[in-house]
């Protein structure tokens, strides 16, 4: 579980996060949504330790990140898997080398043990026969699968995803969303996803946090999104006519 209490982060005179509280539970897929500039990326990077908030605390299973010593922080980093928006695969390494990379850096496993693990996770993300390919030779969806495989290869306790289905066609996006949700439940990972994708909100949002102007403006589940009367959330989630009609149909049905 990750508990965030009152984090604030500024860049120069601009305060991006103005005291955000949130809790992300183990085995659940939590989504952070909000307009561009709402502070989503800064929030996620603060969770990852890439930004240091001036105020507030972030606790990973009770351990407050800023109180950890160097060894503790290194250990925590090894418990974290991250899927970046652009996949962030290492261009000069093949698929299997990319996935193997964290193991090579942080374990003393033999090459055969590492290869077994690489093949296991690549199979889990439904990517076979691509071991020797370079990232540039893969489609966007395949790159995301490799990124997910790399993120879970060390059995992380926490998985963070930044716009995991951006740039993907709707069908592939759903496949990636479902894959993340399945892995989260299967390995009891605490998963936090930063997304703009409303399909993801409806499909896998076991917990949704809506950020607005650096503050948490709303929190709920994908079902609550249909019923909420929070204007900001409704404006953001149902900005398209299609979603407005879907919402109306859902409300008509439950009424």
């Amino acid at each position, binding site marked *: 579980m990750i508990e965030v209490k009152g984090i604030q982060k500024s860049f120069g005179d601009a305060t991006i996060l103005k005291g955000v509280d949130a809790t992300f539970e183990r085995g659940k897929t939590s989504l952070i949504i909000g307009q561009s500039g709402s502070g989503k990326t800064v929030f996620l990077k603060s969770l990852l330790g*890439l930004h240091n908030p001036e105020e507030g605390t972030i606790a990973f299973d009770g351990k407050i990140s800023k109180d950890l010593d160097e060894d503790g922080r290194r250990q925590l980093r090894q418990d974290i898997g991250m899927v970046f928006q652009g996949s962030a695969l290492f*261009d*000069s390494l093949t698929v299997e080398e990319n996935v193997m990379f964290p193991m090579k*850096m942080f374990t003393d496993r033999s090459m055969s043990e590492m290869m077994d693990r690489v093949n296991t996770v690549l199979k889990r993300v439904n990517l076979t026969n691509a071991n020797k390919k370079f990232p540039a030779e893969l489609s966007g969806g395949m790159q995301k699968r490799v990124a997910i495989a790399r993120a879970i290869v060390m059995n992380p306790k926490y998985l963070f995803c930044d716009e995991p289905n951006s740039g993907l066609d709707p069908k592939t996006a759903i496949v990636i969303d479902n894959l993340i949700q399945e892995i989260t439940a299967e390995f009891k990972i605490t998963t936090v996803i930063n997304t703009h994708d409303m399909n993801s909100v409806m499909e896998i949002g076991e917990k949704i946090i809506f950020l607005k102007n650096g503050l948490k403006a709303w929190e709920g589940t994908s079902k609550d999104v249909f019923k909420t009367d929070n204007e900001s959330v409704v404006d953001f989630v149902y900005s398209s006519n299609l979603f407005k009609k879907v919402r109306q149909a859902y409300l008509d049905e439950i009424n």
Partner: protein
Amino acid sequence: MNYIEHIGKYFMMLKEVFKKPQKWNVFREALFREIEDLGLKSIGIVSFISFFVGGVVAIQTALNVDSPLIPKYLIGFATKRSMILEFAPTFASVILAGKVGSFITSSIGTMRVTEQIDALEVMGINSLNYLVLPKVLATVFFYPLIVIVGMFLGIFGGWVAGSLTGLFHSADYIGGIQLDFNPYLVQYALIKSVVFAFLIATIPSYHGFYVKGGALEVGRASTQAVVWTSVVIILMNYFLTQTLLG
């Protein structure tokens, strides 16, 4: 950001670079990869340019020294001194600043803008140490060898030019090469090459690592890196020459 801030940030970067590698076998692999990318792949261009510059220096000297009072062996002597003192260590380093410097900035800069460096940081890896230290060691240990190759090929190029044009005799040229050989000058050239190699690895790494934006900014950073590396090499050349030979 002003120059003082850049210089301060550069030295802060070096502090992170010179830390103990997190995993020696990964570091060793990276080092060999860098020796291939930054060292072995540079031998061709340095050899080619050294050979022809040596030839041109010999021809120019022969054409400008036509007084019967000046001995012909001076052509070999001048070519040797030019190649050892300046061309091989300094001119070749400026060429490498262009070739290798732009490669380093663009590769690290691309990693920055495509979040690959963020990925390393999230994994708990000291990205500066992982990316830059192998480059520094590869260049510092390999470039003196390239400079030595450049010296030999430049002097050889002068001899070939004389043989082909008939502007001077082989025996005179070889006599000039052997005349007043001072090993300290080779030492001076190698000291310069080590310093320049360090600059070629670190200044472009700095420009690549701290780039912000996209592909256009990476291109701009590569250009800036080449310009600044060349400027600093030329300035350091002056100070080292004054210090070591003055």
